[in-house]
């Protein structure tokens, strides 16, 4: 009743939320990629001042414009997020988040690209078990993810407990 009189204004209407239709799987995954940046702490020196944080997609890009939309305007600790599409692991230098599509042949190479301060994300099944850090899984049509904490730590990344809390599974041993 009293609320009826209140002007229904929400100050910062985010673009994602403003969409009326249900977002596609890769739209969600693109958003999640951007959100991951908020819960990850890279080793000191790996992100320099005033430089954007590159979010890379290797191989064939499944996102299309969704990734650019998700990253646009996002700001994590004073750093903007920029999408970067790379062809192979040779170009991985500088990436801080790397998405590897499930059909990518370079998956194993990615996993072997150990010790680099890059958060590796993939929707390839068994990714986490094979040394990946975050693996998207579909749970009754909802996009969830599993985490290999040991792999992240091995790469010097610190994942927030908040992120761990919403993960469907967390693998702590290597």
């Amino acid at each position, binding site marked *: 009743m009293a609320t009826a009189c*209140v002007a229904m204004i929400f100050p910062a209407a985010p673009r994602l*939320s403003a969409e009326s239709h249900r977002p596609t799987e890769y739209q969600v995954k693109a958003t999640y990629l951007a959100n991951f940046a908020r819960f990850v702490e890279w080793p000191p020196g790996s992100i320099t001042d005033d430089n954007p944080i590159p979010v890379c997609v290797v191989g064939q890009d499944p996102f299309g414009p969704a990734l650019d939309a998700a990253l646009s305007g996002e700001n994590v600790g004073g750093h903007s997020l920029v999408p970067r599409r790379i062809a192979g692991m040779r170009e991985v230098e500088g990436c801080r988040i790397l998405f590897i599509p499930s059909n990518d042949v370079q998956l194993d190479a990615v996993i072997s690209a150990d010790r680099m301060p890059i958060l590796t994300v993939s929707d390839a099944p068994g990714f986490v078990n094979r040394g990946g850090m975050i693996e998207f899984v579909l749970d009754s049509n909802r996009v969830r993810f599993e985490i290999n904490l040991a792999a992240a730590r091995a790469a010097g990344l610190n994942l927030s407990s908040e992120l761990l809390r*919403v993960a469907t599974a967390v693998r702590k041993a290597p």
Partner: protein
Amino acid sequence: MKGGIVGARRSFRRKLAAISMVASAGGLLVASAAFIYNEIGTFRLNMVRSLSIQAQIVGTNSVSAILFSDAEAARNTLKALGSAPNVTFAGIYTASGQLFASYSPSGGDSPSPLPLLAAGKKETWRFTSSDVWLAREIVFQGKPIGFVYIRSNLLEIRQSLERYTRILVVVLLISLFVVFLLSAFFQRAVTRPLVDLARTALIVSREKQFSLRAPPATSTDEVGVLVNTFNEMLAEIQQHEEERQKFVALVEQTDDFIGMIGLDLRVMYMNGAGRRLIGLEPAASSDIHIDDFFPPAWAEKLRDEILPAIVRREGNWAGEAQVRRSNKVVDVSMNVFGVNHPDSGELLCFAAVIRDISERRGLEEQLRQSQKLESIGQLAGGVAHDFNNLLVIISGYSAMLLDELPPGDRMRDRLEEIARAGDRAAALTRQLLVFSRREQVEQKNIALNDVVNNLQKMLRRLIGEHIEMVISLDPDAGIVRADPGQIEQIIINLAVNARDAMPRGGRLLIESSHLAADEEFARSHLSVTPGPYVVLSVADTGCGMSEEVKSRIFEPFFTTKGEGKGTGLGLSTVYGIVKQSGGSIWVYSEPGQGTTFKILFPAMEGVSPDAAIQAPAGELVGTETILVAEDEDAVRQYVSELLMRRGFKVLKAANGRDALAIARAYPGRIDLLLTDAVMPHVSGPVLAEEFAKLNPGVPVLFMSGYSDRLLQPTELESSLIQKPFTPGALIAAVRGLLDRKTQTAS
């Protein structure tokens, strides 16, 4: 009686207690209401703060869940609110306003429409009638990502409110009780002086005890002023009352009549002496008019002269007047004046001060009489003494001449006349000397009753049978010290005077009595001192006498009897004897009302008569039966007694008819008829004749106070004895007739 005071106190105390309790309760209520209001405000604030903190926690903990659409995690976060029992609904909404996760322990609904945050505000909240909600923005790293909505019911506030109310009620009751105790304790200080004051006022007004005081107040407040002023007022009233009572006592205790008479001539006030003066019963109504106690002449004078003169301001009236006491007129001195209003001078009423001067008048009169008789006595005594000496010479030389004259000398008769005149003159001077008390007397202790008894026979002879003589002697009359012969003379003189005052018959009463004279009696009777007296009273039913005669009766040679009938010395002699015996004589007489002489002899206490004066004892002279017919009771009794003492048998008849009836009925022999010559109905001679028919030859003896020629001579054996007779003469006559009869018979 006490109900009024207790009631008043109760009421006053109750009011005071009620006031303090209402005031306390009011104050407490206001304070409590303010407190509760403040508490509720604080409570609401705390509630909002608590909700805010909860929203912050939920918001912070839901960031990842929102960002990664993990509703499950968000719900888990919301479940933590289960520890806040009053939360009815909690929801996490995405930035676009979609419900992301909700918590609802009791199935509360999501708010609709969704409360949104005002621009620029991170948090908003609102109380409704039944609950409170709070919406808080969730910001993560500077970016709003959604908001938390928590709704809580107001049960806690309501419970607090109830708790506060309960506490308030308890506190209120305890406070009121404490206030009641305190006020009961402290109100004494206030109410006690007032209650005491009220009680005192009540007693004072009810019992007129102006000497009472309310307990003095120690405080200087209004109550203290009231009490002290009241006491001062009482003191003033008491002073006035004492003053008034002094005046009342003055007026009431005086022996003078003091009265106030209204302008309507009704008595407004009359003091005790006034009531006594006019013979008004103390309890009698005081609604009386001046006509009720003034003789008509004086009432008229007051109404027409004295009082109008006062009304006209012509002056007051003072002088001698008269008032009425029952039917008697009392001489008074009277002062009548107007009572004026002290300020306006208006005439309010009349006042009269009246003094009974009748006693004084009487005493003055007594004194005058006594002085007059005293001077006359001195004069008479002096004259008599010298005259007696001259008589000695006259009588002496007459006797000497008679001795020297030869028998048969023609001068002898003339000389004897001179000697007889000298003797008569000597007798007169002797009486004068008695009056002037120059005669030597031999005083003895004698019983007055004995003297009267011994004189009875002679007195009866003296007064004649047309006068009834009643002698009433008080056995306790007492002993007097006097010359018996002189006392006899007093009685004889008074009896003779009484007889002369009753030429057409009447009653003579001779009385003796005892009198203990008190102060009151002595005050109104000159020369009487308080003490015991033997009173001889001689009263007749004769013509009485005027005031003028009364004032002169004791003067020598004053007589109202015809020329040559009295010496004028009888009462003078009585007076002289009474005075000589230390007694006093009082005469009460009014024309047509008879006369009473009262003689007071000082009673001799504790002595017996010096010589018993007794009637001579007679010898038995006969045993015959005598019928006595006499209509005068006293004479019949006297005669019968006389005869019976001498042995005769007596039949008594009060008149001729009775006598004949007795004569017929008496079975025995009647030896003699003794009858009064003059009797009503059947006279003596007629009785004698009839009697002779019944008893032939029985002698008859007539008694008569008249000369014998009144009696018809009869052939009867009869004789006549002249009244008065001595006992001896009667017995002799009776015996003579009986003996003659006996001789004739033999």
